[in-house]
Structure formats: C-alpha cells, structure tokens
C-alpha cells in the first residue's frame, strides 16, 4: 500500500473541501477502500477520515419514510427495530451482506460506493487492462473467468458486476441519495458502464453522501430480499431480488409491485418490466413466473455466467410469491 497522508475531518464542509483536492479520498468504514488500497487499485495521496463526524449516523423514521445518515453502520441499520418492521427488505439485505464484523465497520454511504469484485479489476499488478481502472485500457474479464460477471447492463468495455445488496433494495423503493443539498435518485446515482466504466457514480468532486432517504410505501412495508449464493453466508449474491408487494383489498390483485435484481447486473437493477406486467393482475404462480422472465430481457452472458440468466427470474418469482403468501 502506498503511503498517504491522513486527515481527520472536523465537519462535513471541511471533509468535502479536503476530499475535493486531487488525490484525496473520503475514508469511512474502510472495508472497500483499505482493501482496494492493498490491492493497488486505490492509490490515494490523502485520506480524509469522516468516521468521527458527529450526527451523520442518525436513523430517522416517520410516516413519510426513513432517513439514514451516511455514517450509520450497516449492522446497526439491519438491527434497527423500525427498519425491520417498516422496511424489512432493507434489514434483510443488510444482515445477509458480508459478515457481522464488516457490517459493524461499513457505513451506509460507503456501502453505496462499494466497488465490483471483478478479479481483473482487483488485480492491477497482474492485469493491466481494465477500463474501470484506466479508461481505454481494455477489459481483461471478457474472454476470461466470468462466472461472477454481469449479464445485464454490460457493454463492450465492461462486464463487472455490482456486488452490493442494500442498493438493490434502494432502487426498488425509489430511494434518494442526499449529497448535501443535492438529492438524486439511487437509480440515477449508479451509472451504467457504457464507454466510461471508470465512472460509476453520479457524484462530483467535492460532494459527499450525507444520507439516504427511503419513502414509505405499502410495498416497502411488505418487502423482502432474497439472496441466492454459493455459500450460505459471507458471500456475494449469485442472484438476488428485492421485492415489495401491495395487494388490493381483495387480497389477490396486485396494486403495487417493486422488483430489483442484485448479483446479475452492472448496477442495482430495477426490473420495471416485471412490475408493469403484473400490476393490476391477480397474483398467481404461473403469471408471476412468466412475468419474472422479463427481468432478464436483453441479458447477455459471457459463458460461465449464463446460469444467472436462468436463475435470476426464478429468484424474482420466488420472492414475489413468498411476499404473496404473507398476508
């Protein structure tokens, strides 16, 4: 790891200013940044430690929704009683992420900034080509080991999978990222790779995530996060689904449905086609399974990750049907 200087921010403004300088990066829980610095992917000149800032870890919930401070830690949010009862998918996505230790370190803001697990991206000393690290350098993953790579949202420049769980839930429920005074929808915060996979987030120099805001909804209240993976725990998703469901008073017709996919796309992936196909329809297994296939419309595989195209719709269908069973 290169040496760097270390600053401890005393205020949000000071943090923003310090982090705007060339070579400076914000340091929160460190579970991504220190890891990537050891890999030689992140090469900061200055780390601006924001973990000692006060007041940024609050979790506020009222009838309009939840506001979770950027420095609230994943484990605390997962165990928060009101989050568990009013936004169950958020709690489920968080407690199934990483390990208890990492969840105690990692912050919500930092979690949004989590980088891909693409082994080529993570290994600059052995693979110089990576458009995500160095624009225009090429993609080592294409033609390589791809079982964990994305099938949705890919481009010729990058097929790296977005590995996070929480943001998958956030896009399903129209959450907003607060960058101080600027608010942006989570779905817009994450960028598709296109020809610029080095640019992953719609965040400008000098900006800092201060909170996320999740509006209340009946669908969020009746929601789940289903994560399928190779190991039972401490493992990234092979495919996951965040689902929220609101039924009409008849108890069988779908009034509102939210679906997002994790583990299969280059960013948290809202499956609006599935939602549209099922809204207003009666919730029944065949219709749900058929509609869930729309989740992977346009998917492109690179060999070993083909199974994700089969798996993801099944995960979606299972999650929707599971929500249907909860009265």
């Amino acid at each position: 790891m290169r040496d760097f200087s270390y600053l401890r921010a005393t205020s949000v403004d000071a943090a923003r200013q310090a982090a705007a300088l060339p070579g400076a990066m914000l340091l929160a829980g460190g579970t991504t940044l220190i890891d990537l610095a050891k890999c030689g992917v992140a090469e900061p000149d200055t780390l601006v430690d924001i973990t000692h800032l006060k007041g940024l870890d609050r979790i506020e919930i009222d009838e309009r929704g939840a506001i979770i401070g950027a420095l609230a830690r994943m484990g605390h949010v997962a165990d928060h009683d009101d989050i568990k009862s009013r936004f169950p998918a958020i709690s489920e996505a968080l407690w199934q992420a990483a390990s208890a230790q990492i969840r105690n370190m990692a912050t919500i803001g930092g979690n949004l900034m989590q980088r891909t697990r693409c082994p080529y991206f993570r290994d600059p000393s052995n693979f110089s080509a990576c458009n995500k690290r160095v624009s225009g350098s090429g993609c080592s993953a294409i033609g390589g080991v791809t079982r964990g790579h994305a099938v949705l949202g890919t481009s010729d420049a990058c097929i790296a999978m977005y590995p996070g769980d929480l943001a998958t839930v956030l896009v399903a429920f129209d959450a907003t990222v607060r960058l101080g005074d600027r608010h942006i929808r989570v779905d817009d915060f994450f960028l598709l790779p296109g020809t610029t996979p080095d640019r992953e987030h719609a965040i400008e120099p000098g900006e800092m995530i201060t909170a996320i805001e999740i509006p209340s909804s009946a669908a969020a209240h009746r929601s789940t996060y289903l994560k399928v993976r190779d190991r039972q725990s401490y493992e990234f998703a092979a495919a996951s689904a965040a689902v929220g469901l609101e039924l009409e008073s008849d108890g069988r017709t779908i009034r509102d449905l939210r679906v997002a996919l994790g583990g299969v796309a280059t960013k948290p992936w809202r499956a609006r086609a599935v939602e549209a196909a099922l809204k207003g329809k009666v919730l029944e297994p065949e219709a749900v399974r058929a509609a869930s296939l729309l989740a992977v419309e346009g998917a492109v595989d690179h060999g070993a990750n083909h199974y994700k195209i089969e798996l993801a719709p099944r995960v979606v269908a299972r999650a929707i049907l599971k929500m249907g069973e909860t009265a």
Partner: protein
Amino acid sequence: MTSKTTIPVHLDINGQRHTLELEPRVTLLDALRDRLGLTGTKKGCDHGQCGACTVHVDGERVLACLTLAAQAAGRTITTIEGLAREGELHPVQAAFLEQDAFQCGYCTPGQIMSAVACIREGHAGSDEEIREYMAGNLCRCGAYPHIVAAVRQAALEAAS
C-alpha cells in the same frame, strides 16, 4: 517518490494507553502485532475475508486488517489479550476450551472475540443464528460444530 511521514497515534488498548509514531498506512492489525507485540490477533488474509483479526472497537467486533491504526485513535480497543481478567478466563474462552472449539488455534482469537460480541449483540439465540452470525470467522480445521456448542454454552451462561 514517497516521503516517510509519521504521525503520532494514541491507542487505548485493553485499558492501557499507547502512543506510537506511525505512517498513516499502518493498519490497526499491523500496529498491534508489529509495534505493540500484541500478537494474539492474527493475520489470515489481510483483506477482510477470514475474520482472524477480529478485535473490539468501542465494544463492537471489527476487522483490524481493514482499520487504519490512525482511525482507531480515540476509540476503546479490546484484543484477545484483554479478555481474561487476572488469569481468570472469560466465559467464552472457557467454553471454547471445554467444547474443544478449535484445533490449530490460529483462527481462535478472532473466533472468541467474534463470539463475545455475537452474544452481546443478542445474535446467539439459536444454533442457526449462531452459525449465521459467526460466519465471518473462517476455520479451516472445521471446528464449527464445537464453536457453535461453545457459543451456545457461553450464551446460556450469560443469560442465567
């Protein structure tokens, strides 16, 4: 060209204050092991993938390999060396010994620090919950069934 710059770092570890001159890139794990001789905390992967370096910061379990020492300044740090009091084993340590919850012993300090926190968090309510909330600590010897038994035993003792 890197210039060697160190900063003073005050660490509160197991009730003792230490002042070190460190490069900012030094992790808490390497500060414990290389600068302070607190080698009970182990390095298994150095990337947050095994849990061997688990310590408590402000009472919560975290990974020392992904924590900069400078970040931990001003926090209260507990390592495996700070768990036993006056030669008396912590109940979790005693349970690990009793249940044979380790073999080679290398992951054990991390397992024990994790287990103490797991119980304190209230995540040791059933075997299934223990397995899930102890999943961040790899054991290559395969002591898991006995680790679950030890955590269960210590959790029951703590509850009674």
